[in-house]
């Protein structure tokens, strides 16, 4: 028995009120905003300032998205070599994930704590350029061009708005990869036009045996976007019209979507709606998938299997016989955030582009995937000396052949000719709308016309860009 009378706390009614009042108070204080001041303007923030304590040495921190171990190791090898040879500069890598890096970079930019430079792609470069985050690197590009002769179409995606905003570091291009043992038996191979292509892929397909002529993805990822876009480029279909507005819903797009869908239905595994690169590789190595359009990224893993010698690649067949094969390419560039360290960055870029280092670097980073962007690089012994590059020389030569006719959305001929500046391309890529359109087409089984019109709407909505007047 206890006699004490414990005081009861205030009833829930008043507590609840207090609780809501607390929340309300918090919001009010937030509105006044006095606690929080954005400091997005600061450049070269706390982390590794302009020059650190040890004499005049400049520390360069850069981000890249090549986070798998062997690429990180390759980077490290070259960074160690560079740092050894340059007393005053120390370069440090911070590998990132493509999937989440933009949250991190956005945060870093807001806090003024971004890296000094970063590996990127044309669309993303433009996004950050449009926000005023980037430093003009025309001088660096010029010096590399002067010394090593850059290919024009690797520079154009970065030249707009009165400057050059990215230094091309390597290129990647889509080819049509196929298993020679399967496709060798098909008379219409190599296909001369899209219909033959479709026919050949269909012939190579035997769904009962789990064998598919081609893998066309329909997942919400970059690979799907690229697949559709490659075919659109081939067929003269556009996302942005000549006025920089959305010009998606055109007969060319409908044709392309129609082809995509027919090809998917006849020759692609239905579960490819969820695939990314990893699944395609698996499927290839398991012998289920026999061709794909894409980057030549799996050559390294192929070596462990018996497929290594039965693999070939051609440029994508043109739409019509005798037409021009075209493709999508991804120039990987660096974008520079820190003006003050530009000299050091130039030194590093020039060193990386030195054919002795350059060829070896790209060949080891991911053999057959990453292509030199300079004449000097293309001819560098250090590149061709790599075991896999030489083994797949034909394939690599085909890549070089495809490159001059490859382009990328936002930076197509009609855009560069008109000197158009389309900052929403970054959003386009981040939003995966093109991949979504493929999903509408395949997963939601819309007609090509409906998918094209859905896409036009969606693009305008997501990008906040109006409808193009057309060509």
């Amino acid at each position, binding site marked *: *028995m*206890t*006699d*004490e*009378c*414990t*005081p*009861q706390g205030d009833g829930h009614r008043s507590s609840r009120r207090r609780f809501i009042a607390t929340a309300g108070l918090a919001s009010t204080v937030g509105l006044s905003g006095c606690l929080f001041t954005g400091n997005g303007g600061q450049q070269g923030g706390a982390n590794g300032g302009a020059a650190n304590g040890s004499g005049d040495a400049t520390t360069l921190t850069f981000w890249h998205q090549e986070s798998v171990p062997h690429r990180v190791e390759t980077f490290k090898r070259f960074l160690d070599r560079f740092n050894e040879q340059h007393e005053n500069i120390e370069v440090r890598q911070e590998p990132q994930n493509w999937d989440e890096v933009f949250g991190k970079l956005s945060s870093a930019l807001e806090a003024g704590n971004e890296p000094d430079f970063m590996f990127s792609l044309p669309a993303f470069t433009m996004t950050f350029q449009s926000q005023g985050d980037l430093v003009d690197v025309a001088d660096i590009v010029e010096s590399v061009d002067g010394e090593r002769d850059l290919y024009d179409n690797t520079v154009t995606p970065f030249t707009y708005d009165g400057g050059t905003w990215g230094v091309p570091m390597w290129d990647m291009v889509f080819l049509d990869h196929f298993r020679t043992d399967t496709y060798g038996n098909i008379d219409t191979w190599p296909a001369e036009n899209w219909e033959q292509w479709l026919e050949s892929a269909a012939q190579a397909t035997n769904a009962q045996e789990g064998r598919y002529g081609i893998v066309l993805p329909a997942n919400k990822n970059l690979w799907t976007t690229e697949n559709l876009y490659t075919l659109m480029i081939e067929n003269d279909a556009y996302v942005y019209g000549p006025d920089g507005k959305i010009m998606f819903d055109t007969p060319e797009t409908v044709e392309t979507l129609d082809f995509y869908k027919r090809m998917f239905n006849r020759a692609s595994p239905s579960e490819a709606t969820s695939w990314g690169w990893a699944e395609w590789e698996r499927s290839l190595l398991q012998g289920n998938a026999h061709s794909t359009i894409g980057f030549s990224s799996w050559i390294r893993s192929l070596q462990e299997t018996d497929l290594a010698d039965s693999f070939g690649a051609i440029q994508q067949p043109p739409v019509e016989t005798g037409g021009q094969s075209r493709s999508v390419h991804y120039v990987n560039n660096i974008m520079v955030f820190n003006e003050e360290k530009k000299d050091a960055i130039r030194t590093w870029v020039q060193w990386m582009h030195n054919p002795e280092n350059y060829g070896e670097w790209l060949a080891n980073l991911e053999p057959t995937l990453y292509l030199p962007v300079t004449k000097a690089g293309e001819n560098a012994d250090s590149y061709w000396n790599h075991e896999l590059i030489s083994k797949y020389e034909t394939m690599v030569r085909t890549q070089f052949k495809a490159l001059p006719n490859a382009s990328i959305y936002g930076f197509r001929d009609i855009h560069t000719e008109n000197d158009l500046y389309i900052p929403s391309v970054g959003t386009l890529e981040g939003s995966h709308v093109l991949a979504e359109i493929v999903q509408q087409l395949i997963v939601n089984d819309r007609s090509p016309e409906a998918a094209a019109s859905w896409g036009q709407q969606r693009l305008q909505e997501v990008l906040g860009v109006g409808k193009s007047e057309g060509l």
Partner: protein
Amino acid sequence: MGEVALQNVSKRFGDDVVAVDSIDASFRDGAYTMILGPSGCGKTTTLRIIAGLETPTEGEILINDEVVTNKPPQKRDLSLVFQNLALWDHKTVEENMEFGMRMRGVGKEERQARVAEIAEILRIEDKLGESPASLSGGQQQRVALGRSLVREPELLLLDEPLSSLDERLRLEMRTELARVHQELGTTFIHVTHNQEDAMTIADEILLLNNGRLQQFDDPLELYHNPANEFVADFIGSPSMNLFDATFVADGETYLDAGSFRLTIPPHVADAFRDTVDEGDVRVGMRPEALRFVTDESTPARNGTPTIDATVTIVETFGDFNWYYLDTGIGTDIVVQSADESAMENVDVGDSVTVAVEVDRLHLFDPRTEAALL
């Protein structure tokens, strides 16, 4: 020295609840005082105020003439045995017992010696290494007592220490407490709701009801001279018979209960008239002050009043019985009788006559409930 005084002490919880209401009391040094009262009367709160676990809303606490009202418990030289014992299961018996000395920086050897000494007195010397949880209820009780006694506090507070024990153990521990108190001479303040405990071992009893002090006296005084109706009702088993009556003093002096009258014998009538006004009173009669009138006895001779009644229930205890009598006043009158002939002859349904010892009649003011006589 272990003298405790409460000066006008009140404790309120919130605005409505008054747990302790203006208590003034002085506890004698070295005495065994029981704070007695029904559940919720404020006795534990009073004890906790003395211990320093509660701060009074009003009033002062003095220990050895020093005001300690706002001193935390650790600064008062006292100890408390909790109702639930509050033994620390994560410590051994020995660690439990030596804790107070450890907190006071007593050296290890001395601590061990003291613990051993007290453990022997309490007969738990072979349990020192064990966890309290593994001990029996009585042993736990001894450990709790030992923890409090070991550093010889001037004042030992006990909060219902016997309530969790079964009957046999309770009796044993009660005796044990009395023995220990005698040996040590420490001031004991012991809270209980059990009047039997209080009556048997207390030097003094402080009786509380609804937070108010009812009476603070030695046990016999409480029994024989209850200060008010509550004390009269609370002390004694079975309870005092209480009923309404009218005191009439016109010529004849009597108490009119409606269905019967108690005539006040002439030799005490004057005393009644002097202290009690005519009118409504509450009458109290201890069951043991009533006795059956048999043929052999002639109570009327010296004017002893009697009541005629019918027996409704008989409860047998062996050496005495309780008889519930219907006298027509609405409540039963209880008689406790050890008279052998009555125990043999009186049964349910019998008509009986009981005599009332006028000397042991209590009268209370029906409004203030204070004792009149």
